[in-house]
């Protein structure tokens, strides 16, 4: 008995470390896919969302997510981790908290990619507080904390919706409200591509994210005690990403004539986001299929947001985490071994999945919208001035350059 808790704790903590490392993966992807003049600002946003996020989640978020439920809507105990003794998550409450805290930071950090290169640093910090104190924990409560969606039978094993879509939907609202980057659309509304300054760096970030994802999905059991299950989850995580890579490679090769590196990298992530909701109930073949099509959905979504909806998302966060996340969550209703429609399980799970996605979308869009509106009032607009945007936020927000060739600086 005792020893199982030790093994479970070791597994959950190690998984949490891997999830934590995803922060640097996100930073690399976002910096690589944007322009050099904003690199430090993006780095700082990633640093601050993970640090502020952890603190806020410690003070408020965890209590709202896992505290005693008020009507299945939100939790109400455990602020500042007080009363930690009262909780029982199998592993020590602090171990469970660490795992949840890095999840919260992940949800928060998704936003930074979509609003990159133009949102004020101060506005971003406030939005991070809102995400980790309220928007994310409430959804978490609904699905994982004993809330109404859990009651309904909605399944989201490791958070395609709870973590990724919540981040992405908030990102969508943020990117919409802050507006497209100067120069992204020309007078006629056509897209001017703004290539990232270091795509290989983005690639390294994707590999690190994938590495972290093994912890993200593997640790979501909060136990190692069923070795067959965790092994299966890891297989799904490996093959889902591989399916996403191959899907995006083939799809872009046909569609644009060449295999597009930046979209293949996004395709891996889309595959991962896609299989995350059903990582415990997909079989290897199912994970390949879901990963493959999650990547295709993501690419179409990138085009739609870029060209039709005209929300400027420099790194594709909305499509990768939102579109592929919703797709993957719904796919659980189709591909879950046992309960999925394609596996002879009927439509009831599928319906629960659709309801869950809609509910989370509505909640996130509305609260994020109100949130950014209030933040805008507090800091006097969420967007930097056009001059600052043109010169780069590194100078404007931090008075420093990311890359320096040093000639001619003087003490002053």
């Amino acid at each position, binding site marked *: 008995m005792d020893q199982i808790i030790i093994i479970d704790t070791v597994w959950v903590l190690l998984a949490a470390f891997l999830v934590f490392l995803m922060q640097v993966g996100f930073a690399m992807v976002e910096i690589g896919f944007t322009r050099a003049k904003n690199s430090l600002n993006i780095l700082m946003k990633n640093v601050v969302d993970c640090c502020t996020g952890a603190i806020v989640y410690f003070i408020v978020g965890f209590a709202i997510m896992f505290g005693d439920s008020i009507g299945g809507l939100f939790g109400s105990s455990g602020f500042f981790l007080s009363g930690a003794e009262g909780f029982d998550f199998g592993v020590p409450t602090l171990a469970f908290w660490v795992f949840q805290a890095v999840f919260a930071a992940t949800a928060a950090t998704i936003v930074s990619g979509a609003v990159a290169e133009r949102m004020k640093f101060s506005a971003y910090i406030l939005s991070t507080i809102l995400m980790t104190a309220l928007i994310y924990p409430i959804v978490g409560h609904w699905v994982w904390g004993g809330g109404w969606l859990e009651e309904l039978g909605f399944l989201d094993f490791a958070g395609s919706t709870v973590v990724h879509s919540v981040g992405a939907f908030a990102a969508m609202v943020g990117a919409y409200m802050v507006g497209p980057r100067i120069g992204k659309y020309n007078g006629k509304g056509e897209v001017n591509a703004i290539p990232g300054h270091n795509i290989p760096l983005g690639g390294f970030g994707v590999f690190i994210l994938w590495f972290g994802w093994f912890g993200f999905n593997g640790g979501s059991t909060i136990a190692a005690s069923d070795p067959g299950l965790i092994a299966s989850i890891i297989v799904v995580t490996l093959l889902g990403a591989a399916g996403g890579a191959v899907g995006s490679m083939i799809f872009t090769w046909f569609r644009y004539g060449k295999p597009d590196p930046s979209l293949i990298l996004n395709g891996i992530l889309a595959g991962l986001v896609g299989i995350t909701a059903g990582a415990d109930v997909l079989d290897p073949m199912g994970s390949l299929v879901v990963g493959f099509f999650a990547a295709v959905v993501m690419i179409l979504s990138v085009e739609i947001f870029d060209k039709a909806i005209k929300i400027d998302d420099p790194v594709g966060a909305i499509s990768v985490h939102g579109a592929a996340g919703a797709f993957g969550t719904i796919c659980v209703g189709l591909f879950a071994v046992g309960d999925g429609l394609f596996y002879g399980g009927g439509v009831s799970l599928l319906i629960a999945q659709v309801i869950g996605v809609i509910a989370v979308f509505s909640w996130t869009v509305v609260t994020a919208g109100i949130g950014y509106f209030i933040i805008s009032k507090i800091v006097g607009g969420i967007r930097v001035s056009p001059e600052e945007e043109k010169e780069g936020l590194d*100078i404007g927000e931090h*008075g*420093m350059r990311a890359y320096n060739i040093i*000639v001619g600086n*003087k*003490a*002053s």
Partner: protein
Amino acid sequence: MKKVEAVIRPETFQLVKDALTIQGLASMTVTHVTGCGLQGGKTEYYRGSKYTVNLLPKVKIELVVQDENLDTLVNLIVETARTGQIGDGKIFVYDVQDAVRIRTGEKGEKAI
């Protein structure tokens, strides 16, 4: 033939380029440079130490044009690259003795 060398702000480069393209003066060579002039440099902090970045990033455009296009060109650049703030940059004009198009070997005005 004249060579027009304009050192401008990176931010205004796109505007200048678009304007030149419309006028059919789009043959150019572009270099990332740094420079200082009246613009005294910017005070930044690095790890608690104040310092002045004397050399600010600029874009240098070089265009070789026929004599008759010189004024249009200079005016166009002045109009599109001006923000009115110190640091807008300078244009210098030089005489060109000859030009050769490598692909064809053509020389002189035809080569531009």
